[in-house]
Structures are given as structure tokens and as C-alpha cells.
């Protein structure tokens, strides 16, 4: 009995919650709240909705014979252009030009007839029937005009917020190649991409992230090149953002990535349009977000983090050598401190005698064991790097001067660190800076420490164990269903043309693009 009596209300509540949540999710699109024919009702609703915002403007107009009809335009002052008055004029002018003839004889019926039958207008206007949609449009920086006696509203695109001009890429600078980088305007960015991909196969799909921001998110791909199953999986995952607030492209990265706790980035991030286009030509999906310049290339495979757009603008031999340099830099940045610890505490026999004697002299009088010395110096270095990133630019140089003194000379003369250790830390730092993708350099910073600990505990054997774990993780990692280490593991020889060596561009460009369909089968 008790069960029955409690069961019913519970299920009712569940139902209620269910309907409520559907309502909130779809409030922008489905729920009907029709615009009233009474202008005052509409204005009252809008005034209530936008109450408390000082930048909302309600501008009342009178028009028609003897100015007997009323209309009202609503917009955010902070978002739209200053010449807003023109829109009412434009609306009337459109009518005058095509239907009513000269004079001030427009009636609501004329307006209604004209816009409902898609009359040619001077500025692009869309007709809105729903009040909630009206609110959406105002929030998006459009100008709304509602008329007395017509249950529809006109929405004009009038947004004008100052945006940054297309400028040189700051984070991914190159010597050769285009300098342009993305800005914070989605349409501009999409335009930059379209300029480079003049084909109808380049599809751009738009979705709106949910929550309060209503951010427009676009993703583009090239229809014939992209893997269909991967695209389906991507769409499936990005649907999650419908009720999440998205402020930056990296939000999307974190929402759609396979392994949240992996130190390795699973998608590539760029602000260069040429890189984004090259990625899409290889079958990637590019994600752009309104209000931020970052482009996310999904999926990002391990080997791709060693590629830079400049690799393709330079001659084959040069870029292959530089590719190798980066791989060596990767290994140095990952292992050098731990190799030093392992060699100096466990395997001194591996150090050539002359160097050994030099190391012995250098380490004489250092109070800390090699591991703690390395840990301390790495900590100093990371501290300096973090301080340098966050500080305003004029102060930044002060950090580098102080840092150079602390990590360099002073630490040695104070007897805290040995010169060899300073070399090791400095080399590690320089090596990690020479990796083109910033986010994989961060994962190196993280992995360096477990490696150092294992080297301090078990020497080369410990490093081996640690490497095995890293390798296992890398082999297991999937990104959008694709193996992260491809084409190294599983080995696909035909795709190795852009991994360890960069084959001549002639060969690289001739390779059939739809090859991609047969590769990277998602692993279930």
C-alpha cells in the first residue's frame, strides 16, 4: 500500500522533470509563444524579458498616413550599428519602391503583404513569428521591428562589434608561407577557409551551443575525403554541446576527447588557416567557435604533432631533417633529466671516463642527490616558464633576466646545482620549445616527472618500465575511434610518407585522397 501511494507521485514528478528539461533544451526552437497582434503586449513581454539591461533600446515609430500606425524597433545598443534609424526607413522605402508608391501611405497590411511574400528589400530581413525567437535574435545582435496589427516581426542583421583584424599568427609563426591567422569572428574565419577551399565539397555545418551563451559553433570537412564513420561519431559527440556553454574551441576539444586523463592531446589546435585547410584535405574535421580564433582539427594523431605547416613550404631534404630534429628534441625533452639521473646514480660505467671525471668534479660539494637536484632545477624552470607566460609583456623580460641568474650562474656558485645539471635542464627546456605544437610540449612536461622518479628508483630499468607504460597507453589510446599511434601502430607503410620523412611534395600530393576511406578503420 505504502509502495503504491509513494510510487505514483514519484513517477509524476519524474514526468514533470522530464518535460521541464525538454522544454529548457528546446526553448529556442520549438516552443510556441506567438507574437501578438497587439504591439503593446509584445513590448510588455520584451520589456519584462530584458528588464535590468541598460543597453536595450526600445524605439517607437509612427508611420503611414497621418502617422497613425505605430511600430517599435528593439535592439542592444552595445551590439548594433549607430545608424539604426535607417532600418525603419529602409523598411518603408522597400515598400515605397515596390508596392505602395511614393508618399507616406504604407499601412500594416502593406508591410504584412510585402514581407510575407518575400518582397525584394534593400537590407536582408527575416520574418519572425515567435516571441522567444525574437528574444534570441535580439540577443544575437539583430535589430527587431514589430508592428502594431501584425503578428510577425522583422529581424535585420545589424551587428557591429569591433573585431580584431586578420593579422600575423602569434603562436605559430613561420619563416616561409602565409602569415594570416584567424580572428575572433566566426564568419570571417569561415570566409578565410572558403577562400582557400573553392569547392562545394567543403561543407560547413553550424550548431549552437546551449546554455546562456548561445555560441555558434561551426565544423567543416571535405565530403569525399572525410571518413564517414568518423564523421558520424564526431556528430554524435558534438551534439553534447547543445546544452553546454562553449566559450573557446578548447571546450569542444575537452568535451569530445576520448580520454580525459591522458596526458596526450587528442586533437590538434591551430590558428593558421592554411594548416586547417591542409588538415581538412587529409580528412580532418575543423571546428570553429564564434568569439575565438582557435581551430580544432579532429582527430589529432600522435605523429601529426611533429608536423608544422612550414614542413610543406620548404624543400624535402630540409623539412625531413627538421622533422628528425624535432623527434630528437621530443626524446631529449622527455628523457634527458631522467637519463642523467639514471646514468649518474645507477650506471656510471656508461659514462665515458673523461666525462665521468668532469661530472664528478661538477657534482662535488652539491648537497642534494641527483634526483632532487634535477627535480629542484626542473621546478625552478617550470616556475619561470609559468611566470613568463602570465606576466604582462614589459615585465616579462625581467623574469627572464632574474630566471637566467637563478637557474644559471647563481645556482652554481651557491652550490645548489651543478653546471651539468644546468645544461641538462636548459637543454630540456630548449628541446621542448622546438616542438611545433604547444599542447604536446605540455604533455612532455607532465611525463618528464614520472620518468625522473622511475629513473631515480630503478635506473635504466625503471625508465624502461615507465616507457612501457607510456607506450601501452599510447597504443591503447583512440581518438574519434582511430588509433592514436597510426600509422606507426598499426603499421601502415603507405602512410609513413609524412611521418619520419617528408616525401617530395610531388609524391605527397599525388596520393589519392579517398585512400583515407580504407584506412583508419575505427576500432570497436
Amino acid at each position: 500500500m505504502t509502495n503504491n501511494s509513494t510510487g505514483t507521485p514519484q513517477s509524476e514528478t519524474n514526468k514533470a522533470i522530464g518535460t521541464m528539461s525538454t522544454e529548457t533544451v528546446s526553448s529556442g526552437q520549438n516552443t510556441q509563444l506567438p507574437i501578438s497582434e497587439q504591439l503593446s503586449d509584445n513590448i510588455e513581454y520584451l520589456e519584462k524579458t530584458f528588464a535590468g539591461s541598460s543597453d536595450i533600446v526600445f524605439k517607437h515609430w509612427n508611420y503611414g498616413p497621418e502617422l497613425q500606425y505605430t511600430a517599435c524597433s528593439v535592439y542592444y545598443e552595445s551590439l548594433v550599428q549607430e545608424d539604426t534609424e535607417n532600418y525603419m526607413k529602409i523598411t518603408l522605402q522597400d515598400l515605397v519602391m515596390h508596392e505602395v508608391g511614393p508618399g507616406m501611405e504604407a499601412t500594416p497590411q502593406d508591410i504584412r503583404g510585402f514581407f510575407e511574400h518575400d518582397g525584394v528589400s534593400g537590407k536582408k530581413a527575416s520574418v519572425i513569428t515567435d516571441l522567444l525567437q525574437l528574444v534570441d535574435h535580439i540577443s544575437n545582435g539583430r535589430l527587431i521591428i514589430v508592428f502594431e496589427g501584425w503578428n510577425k516581426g522583422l529581424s535585420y542583421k545589424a551587428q557591429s562589434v569591433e573585431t580584431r583584424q586578420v593579422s600575423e599568427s602569434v603562436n605559430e609563426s613561420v619563416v616561409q608561407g602565409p602569415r594570416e591567422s584567424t580572428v575572433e569572428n566566426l564568419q570571417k574565419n569561415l570566409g578565410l577557409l572558403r577562400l582557400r577551399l573553392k569547392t562545394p565539397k567543403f561543407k560547413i555545418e553550424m550548431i549552437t551551443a546551449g546554455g546562456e551563451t548561445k555560441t555558434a559553433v561551426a565544423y567543416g570537412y571535405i565530403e569525399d575525403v572525410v571518413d564517414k564513420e568518423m564523421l558520424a561519431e564526431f556528430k554524435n559527440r558534438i551534439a553534447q554541446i547543445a546544452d553546454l556553454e562553449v566559450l573557446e574551441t578548447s571546450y569542444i576539444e575537452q568535451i569530445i576527447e576520448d580520454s580525459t586523463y591522458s596526458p596526450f592531446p587528442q586533437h590538434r589546435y591551430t590558428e593558421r588557416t592554411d594548416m586547417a585547410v591542409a588538415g581538412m584535405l587529409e580528412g580532418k574535421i575543423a571546428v570553429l567557435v564564434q568569439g575565438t580564433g582557435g581551430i580544432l582539427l579532429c582527430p589529432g594523431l600522435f605523429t601529426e604533432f611533429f608536423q608544422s605547416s612550414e614542413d610543406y613550404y620548404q624543400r624535402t631534404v630540409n623539412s625531413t631533417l627538421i622533422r628528425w630534429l624535432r623527434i630528437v628534441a621530443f626524446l631529449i625533452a622527455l628523457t634527458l633529466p631522467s637519463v642523467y639521473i639514471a646514468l649518474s646514480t645507477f650506471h656510471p660505467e656508461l659514462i665515458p671516463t673523461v666525462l665521468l671525471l668532469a661530472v664528478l668534479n661538477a657534482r662535488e660539494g652539491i648537497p642534494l642527490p641527483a634526483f632532487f637536484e634535477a627535480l629542484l632545477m626542473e621546478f625552478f624552470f617550470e616556475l619561470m616558464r609559468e611566470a613568463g607566460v602570465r606576466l604582462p609583456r614589459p615585465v616579462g623580460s625581467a623574469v627572464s633576466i632574474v630566471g637566467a641568474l637563478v637557474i644559471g650562474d647563481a645556482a652554481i656558485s651557491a652550490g645548489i646545482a651543478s653546471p651539468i645539471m644546468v645544461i641538462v635542464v636548459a637543454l630540456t627546456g630548449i628541446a621542448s620549445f622546438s616542438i611545433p605544437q604547444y599542447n604536446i610540449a605540455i604533455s612532455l612536461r607532465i611525463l618528464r616527472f614520472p620518468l625522473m622518479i622511475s629513473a631515480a628508483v630503478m635506473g635504466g630499468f625503471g625508465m624502461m618500465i615507465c616507457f612501457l607504460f607510456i607506450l601501452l597507453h599510447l597504443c591503447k589510446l583512440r581518438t574519434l575511434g582511430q588509433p592514436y599511434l597510426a600509422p606507426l601502430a598499426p603499421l601502415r607503410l603507405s602512410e609513413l610518407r609524412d611521418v619520419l620523412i617528408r616525401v617530395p611534395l610531388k609524391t605527397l600530393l599525388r596520393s589519392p585522397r579517398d585512400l583515407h576511406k580504407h584506412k583508419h578503420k575505427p576500432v570497436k
Partner: protein
Amino acid sequence: MRRLRISRSFRTRCLPVMLVTLIFAVTGCGEIKDINHRALPIVMGIAPGDEKEFRVALQIPLPGQQQYTVRTVSAEGETVSQAIQRVQTNVENHLDLLHLKLIIFHLDLIKDGINEELEYAIRSRQIAPKSYIAATESDIVKLLNSTKERVEQDGTTFYNFFSQTAGWTPDISNTQLWEAYRAVHSSSQDYMAAIVGIGDDEMLESRGSAVIAGGKMVDRLDSEEMLLVNIFNNKFQGAVIQVLEKASVMVIGAKVRNVVSIKSGVPKLHSKLTLTVSIEETKGEPSPGEIRHQLNEEMEGRFMMILNRMKKHEADLFHIGQHFRRILTPDEMKKWRSEYYPQLEASIEVETLIRNTGDLIDQ
């Protein structure tokens, strides 16, 4: 009754982390000593002791702020390891033989046999098998002390003396520890150890080589003989041979072909040594043919002389027995030194090619 079950997320996530953490607990990393708390001797000398069986002397570079100093520490013991233990008690840092580059045995010790010492060196697992071995007639402590100043300037001096990439020449034998250890268990490979002494002006003075067979010194070769053995064993780098009094030639290539057979229990060997030489210096005006002829004869003569001496000592310096391994059974090979080798009938044919006469000889 409900069974207590470990949850799946615990099994897949926490358990591996716990197990990996346990690895660190069992490593015993607390015993690891930092590099600057280790004494890493570079040269070890072993000699018969005054009171006890062995005296072991170690030359240890000790780090300093600017320049390291070299100290020679020695102690006596009934066994080599005991003597090293005694040294350890006198040294403030942890003694570590990992970086040993050279082991010098006193000749008196080699005459009694050094097989046990070699076994110890390998079994200790500290001494690198690629470290060199040498012999000396001088007092080892004095030898190590006298070379101190030179080692202080360059820690690798001793190593360089034997290293093929530095100051080694083919008239010094540069046997490594593993080669000596191999001879302990091999029935057909014997070795030599360079005999060094305190030099007057130089740090070390080469005084020929000791031939060691069955762990004991059986003969002594001078540097000319040493050169031939090395050329025959394909170590001819920079070797210069004097041809009578007429010319000196530099060996730039040496190739040996051996044809072996056993007829009615008697092993037969025919070797063909092809020498490629370039003429370095001439006296008078010898013709190329003359030089070739002289060189061939001289090499043949020296080879036969050394081989006959070695046969007497049952020391297989040229590793001739190796070529009979495909004919003799393993059991027969064990008797190689005692039964077959002394009966060996060997002949050698030397062919010389003069690659470069320079302007020294008119063709």
C-alpha cells in the same frame, strides 16, 4: 549471502596504480649511492703481498672543486676481494669498480697463474669485461704512484696507452679482460699481456709481452715478435716493418687464409698471408721486387720461429686450434694443446703487394 566483490572501477583503475606503487617499495633504492659519493678507480694493480697472499692497489681519482687529485690506495688480503674490502674501509667514499679500465698483474703472480683472479674479476660483476689487462715487473704501488701526476692531467692516460683509437701501436698487446677469461675455458685460444714498467721520461715503458697459457706465463715476446702476432691476428693498424736494412714499410692491409687438415692424427696447416704495404723509407736503391722478396722471407722466418717456440710451450697464440674445430670432436679439442698442437706441421706463404712506392723507387 552476498559475496564481497571488488568493484570493477577499483580493479581497472586503482589496483594497477597500487601495484605499480608497490614496485617502488621493493627496489631498495635507498642503497643507491650518488656519483659523487663513489670512488671510481681507473687502474687496479694486483701483486703478491708481503704478509698475505695478495696486495691490491687502486688508483682513484678524487673529485675536487676545480681539479681532481689522484690517490693510490693499497691493502693486502688472503683473496683479491678481501684486499679490495680492506681498501674500502680506508676510503671515505663507496668503492665501485665499475669504471676500471686497466688491471695490472705483477709478473710473479702471472708466473704462478692468474686464472682465479680472472674468474673473480668476471664474477664480481663490477669490472667491465672490456677493461684491458697488463703485466709489470715493477712494484705496483710504485708504478701507480709514479704515474699519478700524468693521470691527474688526463684521467684516461692508462686507457689511451692501450686504446686503438689513441696511443696504441701493434707492438703492444692490448688484451681485454674477456679475452683472457675466454682463454681460461678455451682449449685453443691463448693470449698475451703487455709488460709495462715505470718509464724514465714517459709515463709507461713497454717491455714486450708475456705469453700466458693455462693461466701461467710461459714465454716472453719482444715488440718485433709481438708485431707479427698482431698482424697475423689482424691488428695491423699503423704497423711499420723494417725490411733488413734496406727499407721500412707500413702495413696497410693483412689477410690470412688458413687451410687445415688432419692426416693420420697429425694436424697440418697451410697459411697464406697477403700483406699490402706502402713503402715509407729506403736506404740505397732497392727494387720493389727485392723488398717484396726480403719481406716475404723475413715474415715466413719469424712466423715459423715463433710458432715453434709456442708449440713447445703449448700456447696457441695464433688461435690455430680454432680452425680444427670443424674436424675434431669437442672431446678431441680438449686435448688440442697437449696432443695435437705440439705435432702441428705448419707451412706459411707470405705474399706482399706494394700498393704505394711513392717517389722512393724508380719503377
